[in-house]
Each structure stands twice: as C-alpha cells, then as structure tokens.
C-alpha cells in the first residue's frame, strides 16, 4: 500500500472516530533562501498565519500551539540548497522552505517535498484567487507541489537624463516601453544608443549597457529575445536553438567590441553595481523588479520615476520577441514522518498567501503580488511601482522550465556566454562547445534546432 494512501486512510479514520482533542505543541521551522531584511515577511507571514490557525483550532475546540522558527541567514543560495537537501537526507528537514521554483523538479523526484495539493483545496480562498500562471510555475507533472510566494520580473532600464542627452525627447522616452513591447525598439537599438552615450562622453566607456554581473535566470531572456525557446511545450524537452544562442552570445560580444560593456564586467561587485545603476552611471541596463526597493532606499535614488524608465527586455531582431522572465520563489512543504505536521505546514502557507499578508511582503520587498485581489488592497494598489510593473511586465512574463536537467542547461549556457563575453571564444565556437557538452550530458532530453 502506498505511503500517501495509508496516510490518507489513517487521517480519514481518525477524523471519523472523532479523536478527543488534546493539547498539541508543534514547532514549524521555515528556511528561506536568498532572503535579506526586506524579505522578512517570508517568515513573519508564517508566524502570523500560525496565530490565525491557532485561533481557528481554538474555536473548533482544539488546543493547538504552534511555534514558528525561521532561518534566513544562509551564506548564499548554494549553502541554502546544500543545507536543505542534506537535512532532508538526514530526516531533519525544515517543515517549510522558501526557494526557487526550479528546485521543485529535483526535490520532488527525490521525495524531499510533498505536494501541497495533498492538503489544500485549490477551489477555496485564497488559493482560487492566485494567478493561474503563477500556480503553474509551482506545479510539476500536473501536480501542485507548492504555492508561489511572490512574483517578480526582470525589466530593462533606461536612465532618462542620458537618453535625453543623446537626443530623445521626454515623449520619446515615455514611448520606449511601448516601442519595446511592439518589437520596434530592439537590442540593435540598444547597441546604437549605448554607443552614442559612450561616444558622446555622457557615460564612461563600458557603461553604455551595464548588464547583471553574475549568473542567474536573466540570461534566458536574451536567448528568448533572439527567438530561443527553453522548453518544447509538446514533449517537455529542453531546447537548444543554435542560431538564437549564437545571436545572443554575439550581442554581448558586439557590446564589448563597441565599448558599451566592459569585457571584464562579470564578477563586478554587486554593491558597486547597484550604486552605479541607481545613480545614473550607466545608460542602459537590466535588473529585477525588486531593484526598485534597493535603488530608492539603500542607494538613495529619491526620484525613481523621474530618472528611470523601464520596459520588457527588447527583442533581438525580427525573429525574436520582447520578453521577461519571472522567477517566483515558492513555499514548499517537506516530507515529514508526521503527516499532521505536513498538514499544518500546508495550512500555514495557505493562510500566508492571503492577499493582505502577501501584500506586506510584496510592498516591503518591492516584489509583485500573487493574487488578483491584491489590487483591492490599498497598501498594494496605492504603490505605483507594484501596479505599473505588474501591468507592464507580468502579462508578458514566462518562467524557466521545471525540468530535472535545466540546471545543467543553464550553467552550460552561462559558461558559453562568459567565454564569448570575455573574448576567450568566438560566439560560434562557444555554441559548438555548448552543443557538444549538452548533447553529452542531456542526451535524449534535449532538442537541437
């Protein structure tokens, strides 16, 4: 008999037998990866939810006492992921983890996490209000493994003063997001405008286009800009579109060649990077919606909307499309010896997804909301950034695929980009090596076009 089935049967029998309520003390641990002070509500919302769940239990006549223990001081994503997997192997996994949706594929396969759909009714509030495309990102093999914890997307930014200085009028700047969305303003225009800004001496050499300085989900966007597809919707296999990949690599090589982007840009310190882009040292760049919080608070840009315009990532050319990737973090419930604790954890993340609770996180950390009703929560609705970014970006956003081998794919794609960018290889050679490596490592799981 299966684990799930016996567990479910036991629960059914227990509730039918109406076991008298006994005082229950439960400790729920929450580990949140990639979280700093402004992301405190990833854990605090669970504590607030615990209070609510305790009150609900009290009304039913049960004495439930939940202690929430949170941890978010990990050295980085690597340490967090190693920590979670090793704890799961040792049977001491935290009850709830907040992590990248990309972890769903390997962790579900390994049996570290349990589907939240085993415990939650998705036809009931607040889950029936969560955007279906976000729920989809937290699902794998048609099973709902987790709940989206927040949403974001990765826009392209323009520094308005620099754009004015190279000849754009205010109206033309305001029209840029529309031009990008329609495919009229492309990455070729980015090269031209960035070069102009450098040649005219408005920004320093290497600051015409100032990309993210490290690996991350952003790079898939540029591959998509040139018409690349990450996953084949029919077969679920990963896709290497050689022409798109080469054009994407070549774009960065061209940007370096033209002096827009520094050859040794990769590895630039994030602190330096944020401070530079938030204060106009770069003409064009790309980042994430949560950057709004960083620019306006820590970096002291008091007039975000007066100084910065934002749009989708422009298309690479005629064959490509403007796009943006959303990379939501998700709440996952881990496999525990005691099914009741899984149930409590699932209830907690459900309550923490209430629009009002989620809005606290969304606004404090400059992320986007997860459910439609958040636009009726004043805290969320009155925030200009949240509403404009949601409207301009989230409709066009897609996510990276939940696939066991996507990690290998994305790491190899990054290696190739790095090699082209730094001039170690030509774009053509880098793609050839990428093809060889992915063919060897992924085999049948890859479609090459």
């Amino acid at each position: 008999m299966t684990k799930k089935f016996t567990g479910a049967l036991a629960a059914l029998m227990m509730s039918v037998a109406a076991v008298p309520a006994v005082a229950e003390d439960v400790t729920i641990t929450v580990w949140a990866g990639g979280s700093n002070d402004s992301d405190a509500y990833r854990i605090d919302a669970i504590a607030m939810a615990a209070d609510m769940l305790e009150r609900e239990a009290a009304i039913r006549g049960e004495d439930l006492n939940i202690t929430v223990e949170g941890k978010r001081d990990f050295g980085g994503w690597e340490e967090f992921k190693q920590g979670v997997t090793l704890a799961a192997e040792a049977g001491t996994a935290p009850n709830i983890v907040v992590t990248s949706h990309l972890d769903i594929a390997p962790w579900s396969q390994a049996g570290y996490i349990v589907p939240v759909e085993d415990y939650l009714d998705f036809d009931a509030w607040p889950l029936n209000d969560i955007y279906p495309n976000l729920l989809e990102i937290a699902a794998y093999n048609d099973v709902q493994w987790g709940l989206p914890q927040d949403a974001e997307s990765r826009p392209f930014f323009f520094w308005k003063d620099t754009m004015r200085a190279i000849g754009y009028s205010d109206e033309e700047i305001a029209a840029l997001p529309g031009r990008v969305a329609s495919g009229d303003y492309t990455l070729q225009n980015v090269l031209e405008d960035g070069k102009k800004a450098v040649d005219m001496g408005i920004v320093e050499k290497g600051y015409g286009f100032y990309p993210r300085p490290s690996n991350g989900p952003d790079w898939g966007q540029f591959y998509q800009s040139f018409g690349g597809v990450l996953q084949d919707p029919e077969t679920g296999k990963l896709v290497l579109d050689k022409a798109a990949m080469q054009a994407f690599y070549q774009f960065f090589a061209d940007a370096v060649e033209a002096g827009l982007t520094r050859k040794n840009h990769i590895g630039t310190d994030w602190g330096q990077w944020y401070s530079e882009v938030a204060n106009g040292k770069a003409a064009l760049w790309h980042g994430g919606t949560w950057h709004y919080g960083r620019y306006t608070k820590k970096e002291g840009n008091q007039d975000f909307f007066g100084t910065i315009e934002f749009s989708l990532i422009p298309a690479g050319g005629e064959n490509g499309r403007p796009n943006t990737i959303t990379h939501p973090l998700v709440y996952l419930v881990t496999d525990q010896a005691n099914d009741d604790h899984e149930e409590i954890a699932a209830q907690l993340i459900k309550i923490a997804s209430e629009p009002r609770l989620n809005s606290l996180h969304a606004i404090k950390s400059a992320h986007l909301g997860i459910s439609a009703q958040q636009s009726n929560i004043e805290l969320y609705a009155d925030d200009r950034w949240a509403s404009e970014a949601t409207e301009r970006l989230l409709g066009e956003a897609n996510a990276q695929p939940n696939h066991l081998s996507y990690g290998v794919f994305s790491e190899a794609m990054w290696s190739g980009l790095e090699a082209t960018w730094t001039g170690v290889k030509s774009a053509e050679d880098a793609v050839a090596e990428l093809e060889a490596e992915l063919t060897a490592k992924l085999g049948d799981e890859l479609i090459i076009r």
Partner: protein
Amino acid sequence: MNRRTALGFGFLAPALLVVILFFLAPVVLTVFFAFTNMSTSTGIRGGEYLLNQSILRSIPEDAISTETRNTLENAGYQVNDQGLAKLAETVSPATADELRSLHGGARFDSRRDMERALKDLRENRIRSTRDRKAAADLFNTSILNTRYNTEDAFRAALAGTNVPVGDHDALTSFAYTGWSWTTENMKLLFSLDSSYRYAANTALYVALTLAFNVGFGLFLAISTFYLPPVLASTFRTIWFLPRILPPVLYVLMWKWFTWDTGFLATMTGYLGIAPRNWMLDTATNAWVFVVLINGCVGASLGMILFSSAIKAIPTSMLYASEVDGASRWQQVRYIILPQLRWPILFTTSYQTLSLLTSFEYILLSTEGGPGRATEVWALAAYHTALSNYGGNLQYGLGAAYALILVVIGIIASLLYLRFFNFKELVSKPRIEQ
C-alpha cells in the same frame, strides 16, 4: 602484542582515527560516488518507485508499447463499484449511495475534478478538505504521481492496471527514483572538451604556484637569515599574515587592490592608464593574480620551514666557510641549499598535493573566470557537485572529477618518494651507525 607495541599503537590511535575519518573515508566515498549517477534528484539513501509524465517521457520509444503509455496517461479517476465499496466502508454506505446516484460510473481526468464531484454531495457532505482528498483517492485508478516504498508495492499497483505484463519489468526499472551504478561519469569526463581544458588549467596552476611558493619561500628564508634577528622576525611575521588571515578577508583585500576602482587602478590612473579590473581583465591577468594570491599563502609556509631548517645548520660550518673566504652566494649554494633538500622535498610534495585539490582562493577571487580560463579541476568538481542554481546537484559526476584527483595525487606521492630517494633521507645519520 607486547606492552611496548601496544603503547605504540595507543599513541598512534588518535592519528589513525584522523587518517581514517578525514582521508580514508572520503577517498572510499569518492570512489563509491564516482561510479553512481547520484544527484539531488536521486537522493543519497536510495529510492522509491514513481511514475510521472517526465519519467514516462524519458523512457525510450521502443522500451514500452504505446498502449502502455496511453493506459498510464489516461487512467484518471473513476467512480466505480470498487471505489464506492471502499467509500462505504471508510465513510458511510449512505455517502457511497449518494455519490453513486450523482456520479456513478463517471470518469475524471484530474484529482481536482474528482474532489469537485465529492463536493456535490448534499445529504452526506464531507466537511474536511483532508477527508475529501482521502475519499477522492479511493477512486484513483492511475498510478502516476504516487510514490511506492518498495518494488513489490509498485509491481502490485502495476498489476492492478491494464498495463500489459510484458512492460512491467521495463517500467519498474525506469520508475526507480534512487541512484544506480554506472560508468557513464568517467566516459562523460573523457568525452568533454572542457575536461581537457580544466586539466591543462590545473597543470598550469600547480606548476606556476609551486614554483612561486618554493622559490619565494626560499628567498624569504635565506634573505631573513642574514638579517639581524629582530628585523628578521618582523619580516617573517609580516609575510606570515596571508596564511593566518581568514581566506575571505584575504581575498577581499586582493579584490579591493585590483578592482577598477581599487588601489592599483587609481595608481596606474595617474600614469594615464585607463582604469580596469586588473584581476579579471584578461586570462593572463587572472592567472597572475591566482598565482600571487595562492603563492603568498604557500610561500609563508615554505619560509617558516626553510628558516628553521637553516637555523639547524651547525653555525661552525658557516664560520668555517667564512674563514675559507666563501661569499654569501657560495654559502647559499654549497652549504645552505644542500642541507635544505629534505624541507624542499617536503614543501614541494606537500604543496603539489594540496594545490591539486585546493580551489578556495580561486573560487573566492576569480570564480574560475574570465570565461572559465582559471577553472581548475577541483573547482570544476565543486561546481558540478555542490553549486547549481538550477537545483539538481550532480554528486556522482562531481565525485568522478574528484576521483581523478585522488588517483593523480597517489601517483604523484609515489613518484616524489622515488625521485627524492625518501629512504636515504630518513636513514640514520652515518655517525650513529
């Protein structure tokens, strides 16, 4: 065993324990992991049996019949007599009767639709989500997305479906979620171009850093030997700083030194050179700094060892040589260096082996960049086994990288022992024979 040997073993015990725990066990585990396909998704402890769409898709076309695929994919939920009987037993006969009258014989694709059907119950509502889910499970005729603890349980579940018996064995082998033995890791390693580049990088890294370590360590030891004692120990202390500083802090200082807004760029800026990131500007720059960063740490160890070895040289030999009119260079060449043979052997062999496996300073400084130009073998092992943003860490392949290092390490140690004539070095001094 007499008391003397027992005492000997007693004293040796802590060292043996350490060797077993920190050398032998990791080596054995590396060998073991290297021949598995272990990754995050397979887990470490072993697996269960699971079929889902991804697994079905990964099964080659000819391994199972199309009929099997269709049967598995289209099973869904069915309100049949079997399920209704179970419902009558676990909940109540009335509930089962009401469901039969509402949805008897119905088929649902998804669990959610089945749950919705259960919500249609009016007289016998199921009032808890968890109970409703358990009830829905009674009608599940699909084995997709259900984990089975044992092979027997999985085969029993398969037997309950309409999947042809001929496909059961193939399905069972693909359904296993745990790791299995394989030699693919080694084949993959030798087939990748990147492996050869990482190997070349490692050779370059070890050769250059070792030469710097030993050469500079010797230079420091000999030059401080001829300084007045106070001044000498001051210099030695300063040169020892890289080793005692926490690596993160030490590398951070190098980064501040080489950033395009750092000290070096500012100073060269006065000479009219455009600011640049001196560490990551080109592959050559990166190599220079990788060698310097590692070299300064290694050189300090060499310096201490060589200094104490020089001090052990009987001063009478040096005095005698001065009486004979030997120059400083001649003293170094004919007295000091020959007597440093053993410490040089030790430093060289110890540092070759430790450099082969060390990557922490490279990880912190260049992270293998620019463009993987400074990615050494040990760093590649780390990246493969322990660092993957996409989530699926490849323990098996990473261990295969590490295993190659273990093999090279052992061969290198044997060669060193032979080359430096170890036996002669540890033989008793002639005077005692």
